[in-house]
């Protein structure tokens, strides 16, 4: 029953999430089809993802190891983990802005939990990430830069990525469905974030100012995965900051979803 005077917003939002997660096979199949359709007819198919990242890594690696006067074998492992985790974050945020808009055809024709569309976006980006992650192993192998057992700490970091990605798809997906300028704004902010976050440059370059880095949410979240892999671990402070930013993101996304979920069909 739907009653405008008693909309039961919270209960219906929770139902939506439970139903969407319960149907995980649907968004997974849709995400796989998205990737397949994107590379349809090409010889390498989705392995273009791997190849283009590899090309990027090699060229940036040579260039910046010269510019920063670092030895390639020391710089490349850092760069590869940085760039690949950055690509995951940027992809999740940028595609998140389109998560609902691009599903207009389904949203307006078929009753479906909205969380299915957000999940589809997240899973699609996880598939993309899975095509790039092996490159990190390859670089570790080539540079003989294997991390110690502390690398396992990257796993909770990856889990945090997934949770944040779902929140980002809901938050930015809804905001940009309602305000069509949000998508481009988010995209250009991410561009700036790429340069102000230590992705291609190392935090040590900041010297004294490095202590301000935890105030950068992108850095904090990224570091939970990068730290254990190339920097011998990650400080509790970074984890605390990353958890705090994630809590804010998830809180905002959930609040918006509860309050405005029933408006999405009118927005897209």
């Amino acid at each position, binding site marked *: 029953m*739907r009653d405008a005077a008693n909309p039961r917003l919270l209960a219906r939002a929770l139902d939506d999430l439970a139903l969407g997660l319960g149907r995980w096979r649907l968004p997974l199949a849709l995400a796989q089809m998205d990737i397949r359709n994107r590379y349809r007819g090409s010889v390498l198919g989705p392995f273009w993802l791997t190849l283009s990242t590899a090309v990027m890594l090699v060229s940036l690696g040579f260039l910046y190891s010269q510019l920063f006067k670092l030895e390639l074998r020391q710089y490349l492992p850092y760069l590869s983990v940085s760039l690949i985790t950055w690509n995951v974050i940027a992809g999740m945020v940028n595609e998140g802005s389109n998560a609902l808009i691009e599903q207009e055809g389904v949203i307006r024709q078929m009753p479906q939990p909205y969380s299915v569309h957000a999940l589809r976006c997240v899973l699609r980006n996880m598939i993309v990430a899975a095509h790039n992650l092996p490159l990190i192993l390859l670089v570790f192998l080539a540079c003989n830069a294997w991390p110690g057992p502390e690398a396992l700490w990257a796993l909770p970091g990856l889990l945090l990525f997934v949770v944040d990605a779902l929140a980002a798809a809901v938050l930015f997906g809804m905001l940009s469905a309602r305000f069509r300028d949000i998508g481009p704004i988010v995209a250009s902010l991410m561009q700036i974030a790429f340069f102000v976050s230590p992705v291609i440059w190392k935090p040590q370059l900041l010297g004294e100012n490095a202590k301000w880095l935890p105030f950068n949410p992108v850095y904090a979240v990224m570091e939970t995965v990068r730290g254990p892999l190339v920097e011998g671990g990650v400080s509790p402070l970074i984890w605390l900051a990353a958890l705090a930013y994630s809590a804010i993101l998830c809180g905002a996304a959930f609040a918006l979803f509860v309050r405005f979920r029933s408006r999405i069909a009118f927005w897209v």
Partner: protein
Amino acid sequence: MAYIKAERLDVDFPLYHMGSRSLKKRLFAAASRRVEQDAQDRVVVAALRDLNFTITSGERVALIGHNGAGKSTLLRTIAGIYDPVGGRLEVQGEIGSLIDPMAGMDPWATGFENIRLRAWYRGLSDAQAKALAVEVVAFSGLDEFLDIPVRSYSAGMQVRLAFAMATAMAPDILLMDEWFLAGDADFMARAEERLAVLVRDAEILVLATHAMDIVRRWCTRVIRMDGGRIIHDGTVEEVLGPEVITPPAEAVAPAPPSPAG
């Protein structure tokens, strides 16, 4: 027992992505009935206004009215796509909606893949999904074409697949847009029988259409809408008047419905 109960139901379409200022000027100059401003000063189209009706088990309801009268919006609201902004809507029973059968189809996926997708979109269990596939294979008659991408089907084959998927399982409440009554005569002849079974098995049928012969044949009640409001609600006879039979041939053997639309 399935039922649909609407009390003072309102649905508004906000117009977000238009220059609302110039739009306001233009629309309010014309003193439009349906374009209003809501409490937050947004421009909204009053899609449905103050609808009161109860549809109980066994009823076959036709929604009629001009284009833009609110028929499809009402179907989508009952289906759960749009939420009311005012009043309440109570729906009891499992809903099957034949609104846009092509929605959710991936043109690059094969027929079988699309059938599986549709089963998941509907939240069917594995056993139900299997039953759906069997039925679709049988009715669509597409055979080996089900193994190639839907994109390479002819328009008629796409309709056959879409129709077969949409009508494979009988729900308690069947919502149908007139798309299902459009199509070439050949297809209609095949489809008609199947729809009749579906309509018979559903507890409630709500059908938005312009085809009055279908209304007279299938429906027990007609709701005429105009400008988002119900202007007439009664039996077929009450709303449409007695059937005028002009060509004597038709009275003996009713012809298949003419394509709507």
